[in-house]
C-alpha cells in the first residue's frame, strides 16, 4: 500500500475515534478499538477502489502470465524457476522488504489487493471476496496471477540478480 494512503487512513481513523470517543466502552483495549476502526476504513477504501476498477473488462487472459509458458503441448516454463539462495535470511534484511514492496507495486491493482488482503492481512477468502466483489473462482485467479508476478519479480530483483 502507498505510504500516503496509509497515512490518510490513519488520520481518518484517529478523527473518527475522536468524534466517537464517548462510545468507547473500554471493553477492548484502545489499540484493539482503533485497529477495528482502521480495518473498516481500509475496507471502505478498497470497496471504492474496487468499484472503480470493476468496470474494466474482466481480463479473461493475462498476457504476461501466458508468456511465462511455452506454447508446446506440455506448456513448459519459458524460463524455469531458479533455486533461491537463503530465502529465510532474506526476511531479516530491510533491503529485501524494500524489494518486496517494489515488486508488489508492479502487480496490477486488483491482484495486489487480493494478495495483500489474503496473505498480509490474513483475511478469509469469504471476506476478501466480499471486499473485492468477486466470486471465489475469480479470487483464485487473481491470487495466482499476483503470486506469479511477485515470484518472478523477487527472483529477478533479489534472489538471482544478473550473473556475475
Amino acid at each position, binding site marked *: 500500500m502507498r*505510504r500516503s494512503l*496509509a*497515512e490518510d487512513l*490513519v*488520520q481518518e481513523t*484517529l*478523527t473518527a475515534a*475522536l468524534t466517537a470517543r464517548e462510545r468507547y466502552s473500554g471493553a477492548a483495549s484502545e489499540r484493539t478499538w482503533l485497529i477495528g476502526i482502521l480495518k473498516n476504513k481500509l475496507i471502505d477504501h478498497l470497496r471504492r477502489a474496487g468499484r472503480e476498477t470493476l468496470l474494466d473488462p474482466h481480463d479473461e487472459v493475462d498476457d504476461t502470465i501466458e508468456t511465462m*509458458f511455452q506454447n508446446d*503441448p*506440455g*506448456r*513448459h*516454463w519459458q524460463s*524455469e*524457476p*531458479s*533455486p*533461491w539462495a537463503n*530465502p529465510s535470511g*532474506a*526476511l531479516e534484511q530491510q533491503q529485501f*522488504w524494500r524489494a*518486496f514492496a517494489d515488486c508488489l507495486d508492479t502487480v496490477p491493482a486488483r491482484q495486489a489487493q487480493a*494478495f495483500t488482503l*489474503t*496473505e*498480509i*492481512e*490474513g483475511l478469509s*477468502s469469504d471476506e476478501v471476496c466480499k471486499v473485492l466483489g468477486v466470486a*471465489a473462482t475469480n*479470487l*483464485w485467479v487473481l*491470487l*495466482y496471477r499476483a*503470486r*506469479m508476478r*511477485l*515470484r518472478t519479480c*523477487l*527472483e529477478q530483483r533479489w534472489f538471482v540478480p544478473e550473473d556475475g
Partner: protein
Amino acid sequence: MATCKEVSELVSQRLDRRLGLRDRLRVRLHLWVCDACARFAQQIEWLRRAARTAGALEPRLSPEARTRIRSKLGLRR
C-alpha cells in the same frame, strides 16, 4: 499428464482451497517428475510465509506524518 501451466495454477489454488482427489493426484505425479514446478510450489509457499511476516511487522508513521496528523486533530505536540 497435467501441463506445467495447469500445475502452477493448482499449486497456487491449493493454498486457497482443498483440491479434489483427482487434482491432488495430478499435482503429486507431476511434481514427482518436474523439478521446475516443484521449485515453484516451494517458492510460492515461502511467499505466503514472507507475506505473513510482513503482516506482523509494525509499520510506523514518519515524523512528518505524525506532526501533520497531530495538527489536523488539533493536538499540540
